[in-house]
């Protein structure tokens, strides 16, 4: 899947100022990613409608505005690698090849869901495709990712972990303890972990400025001697370039690396965040101008690999896929009641 060429620069050669080398990703791949991003966008819009209709329960956190981020980093994903993230997890699953039908069915709490209807939106897992969840306690998946990375190094697989975390999560103690372990284990090449900060400017209603006195989040990795850089994550090509450099470094050295990816949450924190008293409509309107899908459309038009008509087709197809997923979800049966007590302990233990 990797479409950029790896340069021989070590990541520390790159200034931490958001500029990235020009991507060599092909126009065809960009177009394909555009299609995927639109599909994810429409999937999430459909899920939001499902929530409003009371068909999707619990909490629902969408990735709208952030699609270029995961799509870009996953360009450097290779079979055997693993991702782990928080509850804002639909995009990761879908970009990694997760079935939109099973994913939607999960949100609908159906037995055909990705995790049998047991987890819901916050706990998507698709281990077969390398997607290791979906966690609801802010920051608490960070040590899991670091430990998973240790295991890859221990078993000498050559695989790496992509560990996604929010700008809010970085202030949690788990971040500090885990990044410190990563730095320490990295000295022996025992922590092939790529930390990816999804800096969407807010942790629920708390802006980065109101969460820390040092808003240069990437710099927090200095505490652990972990090299890092920033990237404009509204720009898919910039993300892809950084992703390859970073992934190659991590894979080759067994050491951690970090990227602060600057993005923006265009939607509410979660589907129940109606008021958004914490930010102005103007701010959101301004941010929409850099919607990664919009930017990518312009880029594709500039490159001449698409036109309005072709894009309209892509949107229409994405709409169909989302509709199909919803239909599948709606028509799927609820989990069998016997599922209540399975998966508490391993089946072979005979315990329920």
């Amino acid at each position: 899947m990797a479409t950029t060429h790896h340069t021989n620069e070590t990541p520390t050669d790159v200034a931490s100022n958001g500029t990235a080398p020009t991507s060599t990703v092909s126009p065809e791949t960009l177009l394909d990613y555009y299609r995927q991003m639109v599909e994810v966008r429409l999937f999430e819009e459909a899920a939001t409608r499902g929530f409003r209709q009371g068909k999707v329960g619990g909490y629902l956190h969408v990735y709208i505005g952030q699609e270029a981020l995961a799509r870009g980093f996953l360009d450097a994903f290779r079979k055997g690698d693993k991702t782990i993230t928080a509850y804002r997890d639909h995009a990761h699953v879908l970009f990694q090849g997760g079935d939109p039908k099973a994913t939607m069915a999960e949100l609908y709490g159906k037995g055909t869901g990705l995790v049998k209807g047991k987890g819901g939106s916050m706990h998507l897992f698709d281990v077969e495709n390398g997607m290791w969840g979906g966690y609801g306690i802010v920051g608490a998946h960070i040590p899991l990712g670091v430990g998973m990375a240790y295991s890859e190094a221990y078993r000498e697989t050559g695989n790496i972990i992509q560990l996604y975390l929010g700008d809010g999560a970085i202030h949690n103690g788990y971040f500090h303890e885990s990044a410190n372990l990563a730095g320490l284990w990295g000295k022996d090449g025992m922590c092939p972990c790529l930390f990816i900060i999804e800096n969407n400017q807010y942790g629920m209603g708390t802006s980065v400025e109101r969460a820390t006195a040092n808003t240069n989040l990437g710099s927090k990795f200095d505490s652990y001697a972990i090299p890092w850089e920033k990237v404009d994550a509204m720009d898919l090509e910039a993300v892809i370039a950084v992703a390859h450099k970073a992934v190659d470094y991590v894979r080759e050295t067994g050491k951690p690396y970090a990227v602060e990816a600057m993005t923006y949450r265009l939607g509410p924190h979660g589907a129940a965040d109606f008021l958004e008293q914490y930010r102005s409509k103007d701010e959101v309107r301004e941010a929409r101008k850099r919607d990664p899908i919009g930017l990518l459309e312009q880029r594709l038009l500039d490159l001449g690999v698409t036109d309005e008509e072709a894009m309209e087709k892509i949107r229409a197809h994405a709409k169909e896929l989302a509709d199909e997923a919803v239909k599948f979800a709606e028509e799927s049966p609820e989990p069998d009641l016997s599922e209540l007590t399975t998966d508490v302990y391993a089946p072979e233990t005979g315990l329920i």
Partner: protein
Amino acid sequence: MAVMTYRDALKSALADEMERDESVVLIGEDIGLYGGTHLITDKLIDRFGKKRVIDTPIAEGGFTGAAIGMAMNGMKPVVEMMTWNFSFLASDQIIQNAAKLRYFSGGQVSVPIVIRGPNGGGVQLSAQHTHSLEGFYGQFPGLKVVAPATPEDVKGMMLTAIRDPDPVIFMEAGALYGTKGEVPEGDATVPFGKARIAREGSDISLISYGRQVNLLLKVADQLAKEQDVQAEVIDLRSIRPFDSETIIESVKKTNRAVVVQEQWRWFSVASEVAAIIQEHAFDYLDAPVERVSGAEVPAPYARNLEIAAFPGVSQVIEAANRALYRKG
């Protein structure tokens, strides 16, 4: 008496105490500018300013600890745990510092802190966001743990909590924020350590707390209507200190008891209630104390599984019938 929601009753207690006592401050995630995820503290930042309504980063251990430090040093912080599910991250501060500081400082330090937030299942919040932790925290001497079920109690017990010189774990029934009830005006404190008889009856004692109290009232109505059984419904309200007396008196009268909780069964509030009853009303018991608890599984997401995991009317009726030696 005004009719108000559980939410507004709670909020009025917080605002009244802040008005009365400058040392009272609120601290937690998104309680200010955002308004609080359950809107308990909505607009209080406009009224009291950001020094008294303190928004924090996502750091339960750190800000709970900091609030304990404030409490040690002349303030009366009320911490919002956005939901109690996140409190495991602060459990060390709560159990090792707040609960024990008075003791291991030989009485030199007090910790007048309240830690509050919604507790218990919601709707499809799934495994990591569904816990009932009264028994979990109730284990520890040095803590007080309360779980009010009505607007009147949530206000009155919050007033008591804030004025208490010791740490109080204040577990709101998140599912009841929107429910209404009569609330006395003014300074109507409700003491800790007193259970509430929510319905009098003579044939069987139904015991619970939090949102299950409403379930028990429904069950009692049904038992009365369908089986001519008069159930007494007891709302524990206060988990630590605990009102053993009211329960024992009730069972001495009814000779039968069912304890209901959303929490898992093992090592729980229901275990203790059963143990207490057999200890102190042994000769009065005509049947074993029955327990109805949540299913022994992490909370599932799917609605049908979730409903099956929580205690429901039929399970309680069955338990009551077992205790009554009836077929039902």
